[in-house]
């Protein structure tokens, strides 16, 4: 790999850091637009410098057949023995894509936040955290070694935690923040273990890499030659599985997804930026960054694809029954992240990053749109109390509509291209499987279904909320709608990037895929997959239309399910009722089952709660032992001494 040294890429993280410090210094001052503007400007400057880096990257000459990377070797951060870990940054094509998403979407969300948060008394602090988040995210993306990446990884977790519980006076929000933090710790633990094992693996074979990604990748082949193949595979499998557990904590995969829906307690721009567009995709990014490792572990890829598929379907089903607009989008995010992991698991790293980028646009669009809806309705989040908003807030409606279409994968939208690619690779990729494909298609159908359900329930029909509120509904200010338009534009057109040969997206991440055999995908399978995907998306649309628009009395029906049976006789729309019976009702009950039993009861209560109860039990036992009676202390000492002595004597003298 051809490295060129350019220190100006240090500017990319520097700007948001300065912004964060500036805003934090003003946190006690009266909230003013100044902080918002500064924060946005800083992210914009960072966007500009990353764009400049892209030009520098493409302008740099490199020997044929190698990839160019811009690096900035700053200083040695840790040095212990032979190990040297630098505080170094790198910028390659993968970081370019991620940085574009982080800085550009981040910038738009900052602008939007000015409008959204202007009335909050703590908005300066909010912008400070938001900028700090962008800083850590950039560190995560541009880190040249795994350890520095972990610093960013922890940093974004911390900021996410701070922002989820931003309105901390409500204990539920603080609890959500804590849940996010603790769930992520499980993932982080796996991640750390993976780092250690990886270190040990390289070290034991005499490669001193300092966790540097470039050196790790370069030495990987030599490493696999140096070790007996069976042992090597086992270790790599272990490392990859641990890394994936780390990734699934951050990227909300089963079973560590529980924190993401709760994380919606934070302000909506936070949900859009952190919990849809950037931080939650860090896991996917990490898997792709370490793609050379994953490519060597078929087992890990299978586990990833399986978890991804399971999460995609599971979350989509749960999303069906949610009534909180942000919760629907949260589960949708979980499901879409599942899609990205399907792509990773099928060995299609480029598709994963492609979907990551398009998803960043349309999901942040949807979140911001939802924020705009909530803003218009003065804080109402229940979709059962919305309806018919199409005419009242046309700007939000149009953009939301585009977002829904993009995520559903309807033709010519960005989601269509990216999701189609994932489906294609799950069907005919190097690690494809029929089950993955079938389930992914099912998830794609469900996505279309629940997204249209959301669209129809919010914007169509008649208003179901408080009549008094109806008169006050107003469109959000321009500062909030303009970012929506820009994001809508990208939601539509970012998919076409695949057609521009000059941008060379297909080979963007070629180096990360080199280990995976290029799949020979015939045109016929390409078209048939596309056809089936379109059918699934339209089926979802039609089903939702039939159900949520054609039959107006849906609401009364769900209130008394038994009454619905009687109505079947009277009702002319017999086919709809059948549809309800066969598809919607089971789906709904499964959805409720999954949510209530698996999600809340099993995972939350038994796994998470059980651990907590176990700790509590040991704790109270310890507390009893520390009774304050000094004999107890002395007995413990005596017992310890006796065990130690007997053990040592027994072991040494026989």
């Amino acid at each position, binding site marked *: 790999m051809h490295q060129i040294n350019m220190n100006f890429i240090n500017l990319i993280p520097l700007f948001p850091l300065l912004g964060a410090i500036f805003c934090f210094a003003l946190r006690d001052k009266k909230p003013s637009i100044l902080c918002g503007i500064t924060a946005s400007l800083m992210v914009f400057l960072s966007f500009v410098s990353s764009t400049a880096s892209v030009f520098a990257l493409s302008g740099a000459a490199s020997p044929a057949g190698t990839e160019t990377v811009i690096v900035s070797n700053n200083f040695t951060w840790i040095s212990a023995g032979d190990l040297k870990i630098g505080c170094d940054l790198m910028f390659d094509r993968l970081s370019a894509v991620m940085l574009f998403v982080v800085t550009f979407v981040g910038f738009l969300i900052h602008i939007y936040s000015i409008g959204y948060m202007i009335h909050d008394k703590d908005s300066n602090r909010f912008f400070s955290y938001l900028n700090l988040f962008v800083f850590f995210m950039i560190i995560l993306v541009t880190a040249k070694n795994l350890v520095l990446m972990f610093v960013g990884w922890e940093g974004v977790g911390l900021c996410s935690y701070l922002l989820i519980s931003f309105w901390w006076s409500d204990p539920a929000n603080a609890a959500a923040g804590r849940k996010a933090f603790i769930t992520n710790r499980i993932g982080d633990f796996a991640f750390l273990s993976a780092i250690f094992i990886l270190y040990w693996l390289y070290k034991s074979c005499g490669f001193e890499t300092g966790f540097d990604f470039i050196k790790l990748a370069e030495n990987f082949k030599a490493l696999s030659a140096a070790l007996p193949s069976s042992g090597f595979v086992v270790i790599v499998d272990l490392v990859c599985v641990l890394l994936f557990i780390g990734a699934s904590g951050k990227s909300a995969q089963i079973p560590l997804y529980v924190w993401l829906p709760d994380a919606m307690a934070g302000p909506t721009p936070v949900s859009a930026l952190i919990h849809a567009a950037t931080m939650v995709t860090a896991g996917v990014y990490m898997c792709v960054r370490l793609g050379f490792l994953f490519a060597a572990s078929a087992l890990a890829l299978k586990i990833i694809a399986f978890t991804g598929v399971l999460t995609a379907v599971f979350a989509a089903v749960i999303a069906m029954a949610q009534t909180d607009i942000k919760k629907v989008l949260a589960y949708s995010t979980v499901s879409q992240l599942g899609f990205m992991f399907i792509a990773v698991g099928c060995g299609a790293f480029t598709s994963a990053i492609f979907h990551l980028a398009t998803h960043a646009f349309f999901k942040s669009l949807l979140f911001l749109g939802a924020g705009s809806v909530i803003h218009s309705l003065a804080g109402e989040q229940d979709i059962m109390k919305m309806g018919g908003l199409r005419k009242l807030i046309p700007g939000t409606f149009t953009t939301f509509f585009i977002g829904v279409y993009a995520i559903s994968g309807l033709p010519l939208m960005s989601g269509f291209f990216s999701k189609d690619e994932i489906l294609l690779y799950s069907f005919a990729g190097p690690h494809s499987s029929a089950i993955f494909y079938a389930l992914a298609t099912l998830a794609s159908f469900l996505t279309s279904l629940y997204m249209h359900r959301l669209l129809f329930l919010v914007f169509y029909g008649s208003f179901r909320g408080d009549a008094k509120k109806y008169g006050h509904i107003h469109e959000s200010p321009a500062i909030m709608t303009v970012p929506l338009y820009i994001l809508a534009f990208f939601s539509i057109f970012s998919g076409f990037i695949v057609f521009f040969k000059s941008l060379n997206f297909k080979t963007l991440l070629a180096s990360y895929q080199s280990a995976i055999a290029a799949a020979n995908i015939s045109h016929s399978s390409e078209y048939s997959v596309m056809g089936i995907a379109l059918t699934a998306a339209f089926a979802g649309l039609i089903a939702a239309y039939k159900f949520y628009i054609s039959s107006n009395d849906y609401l009364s029906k769900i209130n008394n399910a038994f009454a619905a049976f009687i109505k079947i006789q009277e009702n002319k729309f017999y086919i709809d009722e059948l549809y309800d019976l066969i598809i919607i009702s089971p789906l709904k009950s499964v959805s409720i089952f999954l949510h209530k039993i698996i999600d809340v009861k099993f995972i939350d209560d038994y796994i998470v709660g059980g651990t907590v109860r176990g700790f509590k039990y040991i704790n109270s036992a310890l*507390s009893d032992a520390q*009774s*304050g009676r000094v*004999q107890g202390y*002395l007995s413990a000492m*005596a017992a310890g001494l006796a065990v130690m002595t007997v053990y040592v004597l027994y072991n040494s003298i026989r």
Partner: protein
Amino acid sequence: MTIGLAHYLVLAAALFIIGLIGLTIRKNIIVLFMCVELMLNSANLTILAYARQFNDSDFHAAALFVMVIAAAEAALGLALVVAMFRYRGTADSTKLTLLKG
């Protein structure tokens, strides 16, 4: 039966263990201190027995130092006992449970 080093060492170990047992079962804090003194004496006996074995009477100094440490410990400990008795009115260690958890 001749008396050798082992006899003294076993005697010392026995005294040490008796002191240790006393520490774990007694409640009166003064008696607890006496148990510690017993353990120190057993250390002394061990030192003197080994010194005899090695014919190294220089090390008898160590036994005297142990006694000095024991004396200092006793003085401080008894001062603490008096101070505690003054404010808590008890010499029963099981009643001293203000600090726990």
